[in-house]
């Protein structure tokens, strides 16, 4: 269910609000003890990155995300109920309860997977780009990752390959200023990350991540260039509003910084812009928010009511279903000891 309006910004706002509300509900799922584990990384504060880039992509484009990837997936059309069910580890979820928050994926929507390895999904887009070229398709592939992933060498390898082969690929770094407890200036001598891509032959740019229209605009340009064989590296500057994961209270950063950081709010900013431009009034926005809240509320019950995976499904999908599953430890034991009696 997507709210459609006549204002482009209002559409972007609606999607950002959906993400914000979804993430808040993920937090509730955890508090209710219904999430599978506590490794839940919320993308609150990063909505403009997800929606700005997401909206610049097309059907048929593919993407990879990271451990903080709920927002991007929603921006690309995910069903929040199936997401929530997956986060709860249920069979009904996108990945049958095996993947969870950090390994969510949907091939139908071009989501080649979230990744719990920092930087792990980056090189996939190089392969996707090669496939597009080989199949003469004009689809593009986007790698989303955090500023922390700029510490991983694989990023530079992949950027080098993308530039060398002129692939339809965009690298998007969501710079929320932190990798766990490490602020970006404690992870590098020069936090102007976008500059690093340029000597490899990519377009490099950085954009204010509170301004969803600005993100959409530059992402659109860079995507056009990338489809034409000039891949890019886009840094979206924003702030991680809350802790690294659900349990982290961010004791390593001071309150002043945090309150200031939370003022960099892409959702509020879009809302204010909409009202000041007169594109939509406050009560319509409230109504929109309430509809979204209702939709997202329902995801929790959906997830809670969803079926648990069957125990013996643990042996499914290690290999293609046409081949025999691995023998269980118990099965082998029974066979070996059984035949001795």
């Amino acid at each position: 269910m997507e709210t459609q309006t006549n204002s482009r910004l209002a559409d972007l706002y609606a999607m950002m609000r959906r993400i914000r509300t979804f993430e808040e509900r993920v937090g509730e799922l955890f508090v209710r003890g219904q999430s599978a584990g506590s490794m839940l990384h919320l993308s609150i504060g990063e909505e403009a990155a997800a929606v700005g880039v997401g909206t610049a992509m097309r059907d048929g484009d593919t993407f990879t995300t990271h451990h903080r990837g709920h927002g991007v997936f929603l921006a690309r059309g995910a069903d929040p109920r199936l997401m929530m069910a997956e986060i709860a580890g249920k069979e009904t979820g996108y990945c049958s309860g095996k993947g969870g928050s950090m390994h969510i994926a949907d091939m139908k929507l071009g989501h080649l997977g979230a990744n719990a390895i920092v930087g792990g999904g980056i090189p996939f887009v190089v392969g996707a780009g090669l496939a597009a070229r080989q199949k003469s398709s004009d689809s593009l592939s986007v790698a989303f990752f955090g500023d922390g992933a700029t510490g991983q060498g694989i990023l530079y390898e992949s950027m080098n390959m993308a530039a060398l082969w002129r692939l339809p690929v965009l690298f998007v770094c969501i710079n929320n200023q932190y990798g766990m407890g490490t602020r970006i200036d404690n992870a590098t001598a020069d936090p102007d990350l976008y500059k690093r891509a340029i000597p490899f032959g990519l377009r490099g740019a950085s954009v204010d991540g509170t301004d969803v229209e600005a993100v959409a605009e530059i992402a659109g340009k860079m995507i056009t260039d990338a489809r034409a064989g000039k891949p890019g590296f886009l840094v979206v500057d924003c702030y991680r509003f809350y802790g690294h994961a659900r349990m982290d209270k961010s004791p390593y950063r001071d309150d002043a910084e945090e309150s200031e950081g939370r003022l960099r709010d892409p959702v509020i900013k879009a809302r204010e812009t909409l009202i000041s431009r007169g594109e939509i009034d406050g009560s319509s926005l409230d109504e929109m928010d309430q509809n979204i809240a209702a939709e997202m509320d329902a995801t929790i019950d959906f997830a809670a009511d969803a079926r648990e995976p069957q125990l013996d499904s643990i042996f499914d999908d290690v290999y293609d279903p046409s081949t025999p599953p691995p023998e269980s430890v118990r099965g082998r034991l029974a066979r070996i000891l059984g035949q001795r009696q």
Partner: protein
Amino acid sequence: MGKTTYRDALRQALSDSMTTDPNVVLIGEEVGRYGGAYGVTKGLIDEFGPDRVIDTPISEPSIVGAAVGAAMSGLRPVAELMYVDFIGMTMDQLANQAAKIRYMFGGQIGVPMILRTQGGTGRSAGAQHSQSLEAYVMHTPGLRLAMPATVSDAYHLLRQSMAQPDPVVFIEHKALYATSGELDDQTPVVPWGKAHVPRQGDDLVIVTYSRQLHYAISAADTLAKDGIEATIIDLRTLNPLDIDTIRTHVERCGHAMVVSEGVMTAGVAAELAARISEECFDFLENPVIRIAGEDIPISVSPLLETNSVPTPELIVDAARMMRS
């Protein structure tokens, strides 16, 4: 030192080593300000300063490589890999560099570094944060491998590891950090390379390490009610491997089971089973039984996760089948 936790005992070992030896430095992601993803290094940066407790960018290959270079330059680095699941990106530095330098260079120099990390299931962390990958390390000549199961070994085995002249991979278990136990500095401790035998029985030997020790102990308690008395061997180190202790008890009991959380095929359980089978062939009344992780990835679903690795119930059932 009295009653403490596995986590605190590890921290104490690091702190004591750093106090004694100014060449000891910690290097890894979030080891400083954050205090370690599992809180092991909490406070050490205040005690020893940021030059000795070094927060790094997220660059696992270079963290291990920097530790190799530091060790060759006279430091005693303790590198931290936040999850053993990330060892894949460091295997070149670990297996081609750290493990082989002494040998390739004709014995000119050793690489006295530690790679501290943690593994195992228990937090619904999914396929890339729940593995037990010690077999990769055990299969690499030149790397020592230590896996503490107890509070006492969290301290003593780490201290012993830090005295080794060769690289040691030291793998903690994420589910053990909060366990508590007695840490006594006075009693003679089990030496490096020797197994510990916390329980003796005549019917069956269970050879294990890390968290599975506790599962084995709980299984043994259950089995005792059936009249099956198990000997339990906590290996502590997988390299060196204390085959003498294993052999002594298996020859005595004639029945052996090995229990490991790592995936069964070509894993630690395979080595232990092969070794016992060849060393104790004439004494075995049953095949050596391998209880190990299923040959599958780990799911986030807690139900699936729990059943992807050995449980106390599985150990009990297997023992009953063996001795029935």
